[in-house]
């Protein structure tokens, strides 16, 4: 043993008689590692504890609901911001216009677009045209510049609404505080009182803020009309047009490539009868079923009379340049007598 004790290799040889514990095969761990490095959705699918169908439906519902919210925001966003509603009240000296209130809304958020506000008041004794623009705003005080023109005559007086109409009329500077009233003079008409109020949206019917859902007996209202023919939308327009006094109030709806449809409260030549129910008008023409939808109840009448004129072109009949376009949907509510004229004013 003496020799053995001095030989370190003996211990080494002895130690070598012991085998090491074996590790498990690499493939087993390989699968585990694949799971560990799998993408998040793979992990989600493999560890999902609810039925995949239920999860899918839930996901679709979330997307649909969130999209809906976005749409609501987008719609509201198109008309939200800071707006100034101006009410123009024509004074006692304003003859037939006396006591009438005209309303318009302009943007006051600093953008150049939309910071003007124009309107035309058709009276029995003349036309009142007012152009207002915002030139500045300090805190809540708005700096307005107004030009107004009164043209004596009847309500159907032909007028060229171009800038030239106002070229001789100086702008009146009018600082306006919210809820404070200011006056300015209009030659030939008298004083007009202006009152302003800030809004955070544009009212659906800007010129008729007091409008109720129920139409009054003399009203014929078309708001954002959609015309459907045999389940196919052929016209979809924004805006509104309301007649409040004509006994033969009529809608003229022009559709590019289709001509115009006249829909009247009264019977007239070559017209077919249609039904009215709140904001829906139904009628049949030329073997087609039509449905006209509007955003508000149209009239208290239960029937309307409808005529289709395929060859009608605004460019040949409309006197106002902005209406004389054949390439876009246009609608107007006026008396039947007005709309049947060769030349149609606004």
């Amino acid at each position: 043993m003496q020799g053995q004790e001095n030989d370190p290799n003996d211990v080494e040889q002895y130690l070598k008689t012991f085998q090491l514990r074996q590790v498990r095969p690499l493939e087993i761990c390989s699968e585990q590692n694949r799971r560990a490095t799998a993408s998040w959705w793979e992990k989600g699918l493999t560890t999902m504890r609810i039925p995949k169908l239920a999860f899918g439906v839930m996901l679709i519902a979330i997307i649909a609901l969130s999209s809906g919210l976005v749409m609501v925001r987008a719609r509201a966003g198109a008309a939200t911001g800071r707006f100034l509603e101006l009410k123009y009240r024509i004074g006692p000296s304003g003859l037939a216009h006396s006591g009438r209130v005209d309303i318009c809304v302009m943007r006051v958020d600093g953008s150049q677009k939309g910071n003007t506000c124009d309107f035309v008041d058709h009276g029995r004794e003349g036309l009142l045209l007012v152009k207002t623009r915002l030139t500045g705003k300090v805190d809540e005080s708005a700096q307005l510049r107004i030009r107004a023109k009164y043209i004596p005559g009847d309500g159907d007086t032909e007028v060229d609404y171009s800038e030239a109409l106002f070229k001789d009329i100086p702008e009146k500077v009018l600082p306006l505080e919210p809820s404070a009233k200011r006056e300015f003079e209009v030659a030939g008409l008298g004083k007009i009182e202006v009152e302003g109020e800030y809004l955070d949206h544009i009212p659906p019917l800007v010129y008729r803020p007091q409008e109720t859902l129920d139409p009054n007996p003399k009203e014929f209202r078309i708001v954002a009309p959609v015309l459907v023919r045999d389940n196919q939308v052929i016209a979809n327009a924004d805006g509104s047009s309301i007649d409040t006094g004509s006994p033969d109030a009529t809608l003229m709806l022009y559709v590019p490539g289709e001509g115009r449809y006249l829909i009247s409260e009264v019977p007239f030549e070559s017209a077919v009868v249609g039904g009215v129910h709140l904001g829906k008008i139904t009628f049949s023409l030329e073997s087609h079923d039509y449905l006209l939808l509007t955003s508000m109840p149209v009239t208290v009448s239960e029937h309307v009379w409808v005529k289709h004129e395929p060859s009608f072109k605004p460019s040949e009949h409309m006197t106002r340049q902005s209406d004389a376009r054949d390439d876009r949907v246009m609608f107007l509510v006026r008396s039947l007598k007005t709309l049947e004229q060769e030349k149609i004013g606004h």
Partner: protein
Amino acid sequence: LAARNISTASLTALYEKHGSTLAAYLCCRGVEFASAEDAVQQLFLKLMQAKVSMPEEPLAYLYRAVRNTSFNLRRSTRREVEMNEAENWLMEPEGRAEEVLSVQAALRDIPQEQREAVFLKVWGGMTLQEISEVLEIPMNTVASRYRYALEKLREKLHPLTNGGSYARTRKRSE
């Protein structure tokens, strides 16, 4: 050192040949066997995914890699760095359970630097030069550690080597 891309098949072969030794080496450095096994598997799988270049003689690289892993494991788990008494990283041949315990106890009692040198020489099958590359120390230092370690182990394992299985092994080999 010349480097080359190493295939998955080659890595698998390396794992099969050296995986157990690498895991035991981690145990020798104070890591539990299960953790050591996981660490070695993870190392090889990472190498497969990364498609890294490895030296022509990859063994020293692998040992250095698992050695670094042991540092990380110690940092992350703050576990006791001494060899775990409850863990056997040597197989227990029939009738030699007590010997295994004694050998592991003897190894546990010597300094880690010396233990590493013995492990790499005996079970890693490395030359002193290769061990110096793994441990990144001079070869003379490795030789000293190895010599001191064997002397201590001879002392501790003397009862076993005299008349025990060690003696029987020697006699059979003679």
